[in-house]
Each structure stands twice: as C-alpha cells, then as structure tokens.
C-alpha cells in the first residue's frame, strides 16, 4: 500500500523533477552545486569555510575539524531553517559560555577600557586630524588593545570571542575610526596567523603584533577585484629552487596600509597539477614584511568617514617572500581569506551594538528634555515609534553578536550563515538607528558638536567592506539553497529504493502534503521557548514552515539556475535574516524571563513586537515570491535597469520637454 502511495503521490513527483535539472549523475556532496562561469561564487566561499583545518589551540582560533558532519546533521539553526526544520542546539537556551574566572576577568577589563575611551581618546580630534592621535595610539598599545586575542604566552590577552566582543563593543560606542584601526590589525590583519599559522610563524610574528610594536594589514582588494575576490591579479611566482616566491601587484583601500609592517597578502600562484601536468592559477596567502623590500604605499585616502583610520594603496614590486611565509597551503589562499573574514564578522555586530547604545542614549536624552507644543517630545507617538524601533534593532543586534560569539567559543564549526546575517543586520540597523537619532534631535543632530554626524559618516562603510551586504545576502541565500538542495538529493536517492526507504518517504510525503494544505507539519518550540513567549514562538514556527516550503519550491522551479535569480535570492535572504533575528530575541528574552531579570518584562515586549512584525514581513515576502505577479515585477525591474544603463542615465525625457 505504501508503495502505491509513493508511486502516485503528486507531491512527491515534483521532487522527481529535480533529476533532469540536476547534473544527472549520482555524485558526492563535496563539489559545489553552484559555480558561475566556472569561477567560485558566493556559495563556494561557504565550502571554503566548511572545509577548514583546525589550527592553533586557543579558544579564539578554535575551529572544529568535524568535516565529517554531513549537512543533514548540521546543528546550525540557519542551515536547518532553509530545510524548514528547527535545530535548537546552538540557539536555545541563550548560551553563556564564560566560567566564573573568565567573567570576573572580563568585568575587570571593561572599566579601564571604558575609562580610556571616555577620557583619553578624542574622536572629534581623530576625525579632524584624519589620524589617531599619537598619544592615544601609545595609550592603546600600552593598554594591550592590539593583542586582545593573541595567546597570553605570546604576549597577548588570550581573550575568547565573547570577551573580545564585549571590549570591542566599548570601542564601537566611542570611536569607530579607532575601532577599524584596531580591527584591521587584529580582526583581519593578522587573524590568518592565528588561524592558519604554524608554530614558527606564530612565535615569530605574534609577540610584536600583540604589543602593537608592529601593525598588521589585510591585503586582498585590487582595482579590478572587489566582491569578485577570486579574480585578483597580484602574482607570486615560486623560484626554481623553491625557496622563495616573487610577489608583484597592487592592492587598494588597505586599512592600516600606511602604518603596517606585516601584511597578509593574497596572490595568484601558478600551480602545476601533479597528475595532469596542467598549470592552474590558485590563490595563496602570504605573510609579507615591509622589511623584505619592494613594499611601498600611497598617501592616505580621503574618505567620507572613519577618517582616523589610515587607508592606502599598497604596492608590491618583485618582493621576495620566503617559502616559510606561506600562510596555510600553497593554493589554499581563498579558503584562508574566507575563513579570516568569517571569523571576524561577529566583532562588527558587537561593535555596532555598542554604537547604537551610545546614539540611542543621546537621542533619548534630547527627547526627554526638549519641549515643543507644550509637551516633552518623547510623549508624542511619532517619537515613541522611533525610539521603540531603535531599541528593538539594538536588542536584536546585541543578541546576535553574543549568540554567535558564544557559539564560536563553544566550538561550533558552522556559523558562517549566522555571521553573515549578523553583519548585514548590524550594519543596516546601525545606519537606520543613527539616522533616526539625528532626526529626533532635529537641527541639533546635524551639527558637528552633537557628535552624531561623525558617527553617521563612520557607519556608511560598514555596509560595504568585509563583504558588501549585497554579496553577503547572496551568500546567505545560496548557502541555504545548497543545503536544502542536498536534502532534496537525499530524497531523490531514497526514491530509487522506495521499499527500503518506505518509512522515510512516508514521512516526507505527509510533511509536504500537510504543508500544501496549510497545516502545521508538527514543528514546535513548545517547551523550548519560555511559556510567556509561546505565542511569538508559534509565529516563528509558522514562518519557518512557510519559508522552508518556499525555498524548496523555488529550488524545484529553478534548479541550478537559481544562481541567476538574484531578485529571488535577495528576498529569500531578507526572510532568512528576519528568521534568525526572531530566534535570537526569543532565546534571549526566554533566558531573561527564566532568570527573573528586572528587565525581563521589557525584553518580552521587545521580543513580541519584533516577532509580530518580522513574521508579517516574512509571510508577505514568501507569498509574493510564490505569486505570478512577482515574475512580472522582476521582469520589469530588469527592463528598467537595462534601459537606464543603455541610456547612460534616466531615460524619460524632461516633463518640460527640455
């Protein structure tokens, strides 16, 4: 009887349609489903991240060697939500990973760092001078701020990711220009050495980097190579004796480019395939010292914001780099780059949650004291909505930052989707929040002295660097689709042997049938979420079920061509971001309620409000995607863009005729 059901189920037959659009062969999950013009695309970045080695023993650089964890068993919430499943392992309860000693230590660090930024650092001066004041720089080095995650036996503070996040939050609250100077140095500049360096490289370079005696910089971007990182043209050719590489090329927009002694440089190395004899160009990561000779830099770039941070071109003219300075494997550079960026992303969310806290205080201070129309303006609904939304966005960002840092400290190997989501959310939320703060303060907010316009200018770059939000959205969506696709392939295999997989198939059929009928497929957060948040938990469950269904439908509809459907990918990604945001606030608010915090009721309201609006957004987006009008919408958008580009500007003639 089960057999007949399997054979004739219309729901399942749609799954069979996957076969023709897939590449036809039954083939291992290793190779990416998605390449674009044969070049590594956003999703291959995900592969690069998943396929990493474990190096180093410190918690900060901890990466799990668990390559064997198949995606079907992934613990990541984000990976599972694309399959319409809920994995609570990494998100419930809200993780607290620090032991008493670490918590005590961290609390002792917060005071001095905050005091330094309140009394010594002058953000306005730094912005005016377009550099970090010399005294401040010295103070930061003495303070130990340049080696926060370097192991203590090499001269650093050996902080965990969570501890690092807490301190970076303080920096973000006061001066993002200084934040980038520090971040470009340790979050990406020498992170490669922490993650991929061998013992000799670590012992040689980390001590001086930790004290700030030498500064580091991350060199990937080139004039013709921004988002398309794999297309870099800087070349490193190995000598005949094999003992060194000759590196030549130019990098642009390198933070700390004018200050650094130690550069992590990415270059194309011609590699001969041992079996085929074919020579391929693959990226290799190098540790390059300015002292090697041939390294020059340009004048500091004039920027919109983070003016205190030095940004410059760096040129490499036949620089001799010894073989010992290869970071990771020869040809393994792309993986190194993606892992470095992935590893540092949580820091951005942490810093920006601090920035938002700071500007919100300023706005609220104004709203509580400014009287207009006979009333303090915080009593007016328009202002109240602004303040409420700002508070929610800060709450979500903060929750994301500390959940991810805790997951990383717990040894999670899969957090790249969540990290990307946090970067996208944090940078956009911070921009919106600061914008609204200026709005609340009115004309005052526009004035230099209020300190807000500087923050606004500083924030703009956060949506661009370290992976533009647009690329990261594609990354989130494609990564998710890839995992969902693997699940469907599993289904496909099972169909080849329906008798042996009868139980599994019956479950899958009933799940899809229920979904098509609009019934719940049995997912629940009951018992996981605090009872007072049960309603919001239900909203999340409904949203995930809908989301999972739409993801599968889109995948079946487009197959591999989903890569080209950026209009779809963007919307899927927006919903994914909203889903992750919902789960982090549910988790955090649940914890506060369970622990009976004095702020628990307030957090409950923040959580409920967020979930209500996020749920509606997701449902609308998903419905729109499934509707036929979305196809026409995308077609129209494309047509408009083509015409405008062709015309070199707006097409419609002036209403006045001239």
């Amino acid at each position: 009887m089960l057999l007949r059901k399997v054979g004739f189920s219309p729901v399942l037959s749609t799954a069979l349609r996957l076969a023709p659009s897939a590449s036809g062969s039954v083939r291992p999950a290793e190779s990416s489903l998605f390449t674009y013009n044969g070049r590594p695309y956003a999703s291959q970045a995900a592969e690069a991240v998943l396929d990493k080695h474990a190096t180093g023993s410190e918690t900060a650089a901890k990466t799990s060697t668990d390559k064997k964890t198949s995606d079907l068993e992934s613990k990541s919430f984000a990976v599972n939500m694309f399959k319409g499943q809920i994995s609570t392992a990494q998100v419930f309860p809200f993780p607290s990973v620090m032991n008493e000693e670490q918590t005590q230590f961290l609390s002792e660090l917060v005071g001095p760092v905050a005091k330094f930024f309140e009394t010594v650092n002058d953000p306005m001066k730094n912005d005016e001078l377009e550099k970090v004041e010399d005294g401040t720089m010295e103070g930061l080095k003495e303070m130990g701020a340049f080696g926060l995650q370097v192991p203590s036996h090499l001269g650093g503070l050996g902080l965990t990711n969570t501890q690092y996040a807490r301190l970076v939050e303080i920096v973000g609250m006061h001066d993002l220009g200084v934040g980038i100077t520090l971040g470009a140095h340790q979050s990406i500049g020498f992170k490669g050495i922490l993650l991929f360096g061998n013992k000799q490289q670590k012992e040689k370079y980390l001590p001086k980097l930790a004290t700030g005696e030498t500064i580091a910089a991350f060199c990937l971007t080139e004039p013709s190579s921004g988002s398309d990182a794999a297309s870099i043209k800087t070349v490193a050719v190995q000598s005949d004796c094999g003992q060194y590489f000759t590196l030549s090329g130019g990098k642009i927009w390198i933070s700390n480019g004018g200050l650094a002694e130690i550069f992590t440089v990415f270059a194309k190395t011609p590699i001969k395939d041992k079996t085929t004899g074919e020579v391929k160009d693959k990226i290799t990561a190098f540790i390059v010292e300015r002292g090697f000779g041939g390294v020059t830099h340009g004048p500091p770039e004039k920027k919109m914001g983070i003016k205190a941070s030095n940004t410059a071109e760096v040129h490499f003219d036949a620089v001799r780099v010894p073989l010992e300075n290869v970071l990771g494997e020869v040809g393994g550079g792309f993986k190194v780059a993606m892992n470095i960026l992935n590893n540092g992303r949580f820091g951005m969310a942490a810093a920006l949650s601090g920035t938002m806290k700071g500007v919100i205080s300023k706005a609220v201070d104004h709203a509580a004291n400014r009287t207009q129309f006979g009333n303090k303006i915080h009593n007016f609904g328009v202002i109240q909505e602004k303040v409420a939304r700002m508070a929610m966005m800060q709450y979500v960002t903060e929750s994301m930052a500390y959940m991810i840092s805790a997951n990383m400290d717990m040894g999670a190997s899969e957090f790249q989707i969540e990290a990307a989501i946090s970067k996208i959310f944090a940078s956009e939320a911070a921009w919106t929040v600061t914008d609204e703060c200026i709005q609340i303060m009115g004309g005052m907010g526009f004035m230099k002295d209020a300190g807000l316009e500087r923050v606004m200018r500083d924030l703009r770059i956060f949506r661009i660097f370290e992976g533009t939000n647009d690329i990261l959205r594609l990354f989130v969506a494609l990564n998710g689709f890839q995992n969902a696709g693997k699940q469907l392939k599993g289904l496909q295999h099972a169909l080849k042997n329906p008798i042996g997989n009868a139980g599994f198939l019956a479950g899958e059929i009933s799940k899809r049938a229920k979904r098509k009928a609009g019934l719940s497929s049995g997912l629940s957060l009951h018992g996981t979420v605090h009872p007072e948040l049960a309603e919001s938990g239900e909203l999340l469950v409904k949203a995930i079920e809908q989301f999972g269904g739409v993801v599968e439908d889109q995948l079946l509809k487009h197959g591999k061509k989903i890569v080209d459907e950026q209009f779809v990918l963007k919307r899927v990604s927006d919903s994914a971001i909203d889903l992750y945001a919902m789960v982090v606030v549910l988790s955090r608010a649940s914890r506060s309620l369970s622990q009976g915090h004095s702020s628990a009721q307030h957090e409950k309201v923040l959580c409920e409000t967020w979930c209500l609006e996020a749920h509606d957004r997701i449902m609308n987006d998903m419905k729109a995607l499934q509707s036929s009008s979305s196809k026409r919408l995308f077609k129209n958008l494309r047509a408009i863009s083509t015409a405008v580009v062709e015309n070199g500007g707006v097409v419609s003639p002036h209403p006045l005729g001239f």
Partner: protein
Amino acid sequence: MAGRVLVGVKRVIDYAVKIRVKPDKTGVVTDGVKHSMNPFCEIAVEEAVRLREKKLMKEVIAVSCGPQQCQETIRTALAMGADRGIHVEVSGKDYENLGPLQVSKIMAALAKKEEASLVIVGKQAIDGDCNQTGQMTAALLDWPQGTFASEVSVDGDGLKVEREIDGGLESVRIKMPAVVTADLRLNEPRYATLPNIMKAKKKKIASVKPADLGVELTSRLEILAVEDPPQRQSGVKVESVQDLVTKLRDSGTL
C-alpha cells in the same frame, strides 16, 4: 633602606553615579550601583608604586576593609602595580558602622604586623568625607604625619612632604616610619592596562578578620537619619534696599 609601604584603598560609589537616598532614610542606595576605588586612594596607590619603581621602597601592600567585593578594589590596586593585597573581612552591621576610628585601628595593627615604614592613604573618602583615618592611624602608632600631601620625596631617613593648607603650601620634614595622606595634586594615577590586570590575577590577596588583628569594631556613633539636602527654594527679586529689609524682617531673619 627600602621598606614596605602599606596603602589603604576604599571601595566607594563611583563619583559619576547619581546618589539616591534609601526610602527608609538609613543610608544611600548601594545595591546594583557602580562602585570603584576612591579617587584619593588611587592617588595614594600611584604614589606608593612610584616610590617602589624608584627603588626607594621595596614592596607595596594594598589593604581594604569590607565585604567580598572589596577584593575587586584590591585587584585594581594590584593592576596599578601593588605587589600584594590584604583583605580585612568586615560585613553586615559591622560594615555599616565601619568608620575612621575602626579602620585606623586596623591600619595601625597591620602596619605593625607587616613592619611597614610608610602608610599612605587618601586624604578623605568621597562618601564619608571624614578626613580622619590618616591622622588617627598616625596617632595610634605614634608616628609623624604628613597630610594633604601634594609632593612627597625621600630625604635621608625621613620624608619631605609639601602640604596643601588653606594659606598655601607648607613644607615639613618627618622621620620614618610615617603616615602620609594624599591630596589631589600629588600625582596623576596611571590607567590599569589590560596586561597588568592579567598579571594582577597571579598576585596574592590574603584574607584576615579584624579579630585576628586584635581589633574591636564597636562604633560609638549611631546614624540617626540620612536625608536629601533641602530643595533649593527659588529666590525673590527686590526693587530697593527698603524692600529687602522689609522682606528680611517679615521672614523673621532680622
């Protein structure tokens, strides 16, 4: 002849916090309120550490009297460069009644026990504003004192202390062992750097009870009430001296 310096550090409500009086008027709200080291104690620690760095003293010992949280204050002193700490455990009612007389008895006992050559404390605490502990400690030990110090230098087997007094500056020369109280302009305390905080974790903090030092804590003072200062009344403008005199007579002031 490098000796030991004993530095007293007090845990007080942070200077930037807005103080609130408890509804029952027994004191101020301390629960959940940010605390830190008394600013004058920071200056005292800084001076002690500088003396050791100049090799004029060989060891700096930080002392704090109070409940468990005082260890945080001692750790800040260790992070600033003190060599070890002593936590004198006082809690509950004893802590509420702890005043300069009790603390100076403890400091005197410790100074003798540790064979200190110098005791430095802040001139006063920003909560009590008593300005008594240093002076009482010197009296109990029968040691000379240099209070309101704005400059301290070693002069042979004694100290030269520049004191800030109402009329200006006074220089005194006192023999050691001595007690010095630190005033605002004595020095600018260093920031505790993160590596030093880390190193401070390895430094020792010994715990003692007042009874172990033979000190008895009963207070002879009883706090009757703690109240907010009266709200400032608005002033009144008058047109002439005659009006002023009339108003003053009417209010009973004249």
